[in-house]
């Protein structure tokens, strides 16, 4: 299964896929991560995993406007980004389980899922680590004379890191086609971001003179619609823009997080529930949706089973690839 990018879907004249397709992609991410959570709890997935439950609308809505040749740099919470950009679900599970045929041959795991062939430049274990990489990738697009762009995702907590500021300045200074996408879930690990950041991204972007837009990050259509406009703008003007989406981190910072620190009273806003009721309002049959969900579940189950059967990598093979080989293009 591969959550394809727009091009391959071939919806003519649509700026982004219709809601049913967006919903399908969100369900895929949710179902995949549900399995991740369970497999982590069961000890089948080791390390740290940060689920994006509640934030699927941003991944899916943003990626809906991107082409295969557009690039993204992601964060520690990168499953949704990776799958939405086109990382194959098989490569995904195999990587998280640390298998030899995982996306990264089991060397990176959840925090480093990457698929360069679809322009996914990697999740990143360093808060802010992907921002300057996206900046360089956007500059490459520009210097190459393409109308491609680069997108960097980052959380609200990352705004405290100097690299974000260095990058905003350079993006505007050199008019680099890079889209800064802030997923504002209100949390930096175990702390409300309001206890860490004194400014709003809106005012910051204004200071840098970079166009700023925001939308409800739980409404996938709103995310897709705004992103389509902004991506269009970035493609045409070859300069940066900032997008901010208010979103909800439904689960803990990472799996295993007891969330004792958390005392939200309202039930979490769920982008899937929102999309689903919109679809039903528009007359899509609930049975049809259920069938789709079941199909996704079984497809994911298949991927998980296959991953379980995959082989473990060996150190002897891994050590061959510490360096790219001189004279051999990668």
């Amino acid at each position, binding site marked *: 299964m591969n959550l394809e990018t727009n091009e391959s879907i071939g919806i003519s004249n649509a700026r982004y896929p219709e809601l049913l397709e967006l919903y399908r992609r969100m369900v895929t991410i949710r179902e995949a991560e549900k399995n991740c959570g369970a497999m982590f709890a069961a000890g089948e997935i080791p390390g740290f995993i940060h689920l994006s439950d509640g934030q699927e609308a941003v991944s899916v809505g943003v990626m809906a406007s991107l082409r295969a040749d557009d690039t993204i740099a992601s964060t520690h919470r990168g499953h949704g980004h990776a799958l939405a950009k086109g990382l194959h679900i098989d490569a995904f599970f195999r990587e998280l389980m640390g298998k030899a045929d995982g996306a990264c041959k089991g060397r*990176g*795991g959840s925090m480093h899922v990457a698929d360069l062939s679809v322009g996914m430049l990697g999740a990143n274990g360093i808060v802010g680590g992907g921002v300057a990489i996206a900046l360089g990738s956007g500059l490459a697009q520009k210097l190459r004379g393409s109308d491609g762009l680069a997108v960097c995702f980052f959380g609200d907590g990352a705004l405290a890191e100097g690299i974000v500021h260095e990058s905003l300045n350079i993006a505007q200074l050199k008019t680099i086609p890079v889209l800064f996408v802030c997923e504002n879930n209100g949390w930096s690990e175990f702390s409300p971001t309001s206890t860490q950041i004194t400014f709003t991204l809106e005012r910051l972007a204004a200071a840098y003179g970079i166009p700023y837009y925001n939308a409800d990050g739980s409404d996938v259509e709103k995310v897709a619609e705004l992103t389509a406009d902004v991506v269009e703008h970035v493609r045409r003007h070859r300069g940066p823009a900032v997008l901010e989406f208010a979103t909800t981190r439904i689960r803990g910072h990472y799996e295993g997080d007891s969330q004792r620190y958390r005392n939200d009273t309202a039930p979490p806003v769920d982008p899937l529930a929102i999309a689903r009721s919109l679809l039903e309002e528009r007359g899509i049959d609930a049975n049809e949706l259920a069938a789709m969900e079941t199909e996704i579940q079984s497809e994911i189950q298949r991927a998980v089973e296959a991953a379980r059967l995959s082989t473990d990598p060996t150190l002897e093979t891994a050590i061959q690839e510490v360096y790219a080989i001189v004279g051999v293009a990668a």
Partner: protein
Amino acid sequence: MNETRFAQAINRSLDDALARDSSIVLLGEDIANAGGTFAVTRGLLDKYGADRIIDMPIAENAIAGMAVGLALGGFKPVIEIMFMDFMTLTMDALVNQAAKLHFMFGGQGSVPMVVRTQHGGGINAGPQHSQCLEAWFAHIPGLKVVVPATLDDAYALLQSAIDDPNPVLFVENKALYPMKGVLTDDLPPTPLGKARIARAGSDVTIVSYGAMVYQAMEAAEQLASEGISAEVLDLRTVQPWDEEAVFASLSKTHRLVIAHEAVEAFGVGAEIAARMAQIGFDELDGPIMRVGAPFMPVPFARALEVDYIPSAARIIEAVRATDV
């Protein structure tokens, strides 16, 4: 006596230091309200308040730089950098500022700060959350580097690090946090720079530090059953390291192995080997062997990481290669 975990020994050390010296303040990400990612600072906020246990935004370079300013202002800041891999963001503050200040200002002032961080694999945290980079800091005049292996040392060396008038990097191994043991009451002060003989022996010296000390002990145990008596030295401090103790042991055993979890090449073991190949040359009856991680990033998969981290078996192999 109650059993304590390694992480709690550090917690207790911080607690006791905070209680006895009001100039000590803690800064770090999620160390106050949340009590630290590894629960090392749990409970301290309640006891000492938000003016002394200070939650910081995700801004490592600024945190480290602030510690320099606090130290110059009469405080003894103890900062936490969540993973040693994130030390990459503090290098200017630590290396260009903190380490050099006392010297560069002609002996004016000092920078009594401690950077607590944790290194090492064992929990499949992957290439950006597992590195052992202590050799970098040991190369920098003006810094001290401590890597405790036992509960008592975690407690006592942290006291010494806090009381030291110089910037000290205090490196905890994440795999040790859950380790249980008994923390001795009323420990005597443990000076930085003094090694500990973890096990006495006469045929070969195994120098180690941090979590690898346990693999060295296991190796020694196995070797003993073959009639080879290995002496295990726990360096405790890698800058300054206890040259005298290593030399004394080598002079007794005439064989030397150095083991650490960090990448072997250009690691801490290189300096110890090099120094002994100079001053201990006449004592050596066989090649100096090092055991460290292979020259690759720390891989994620269980199947990889388990082979990546040096084992007792590899230490035994190295001991044999000294021609013992």
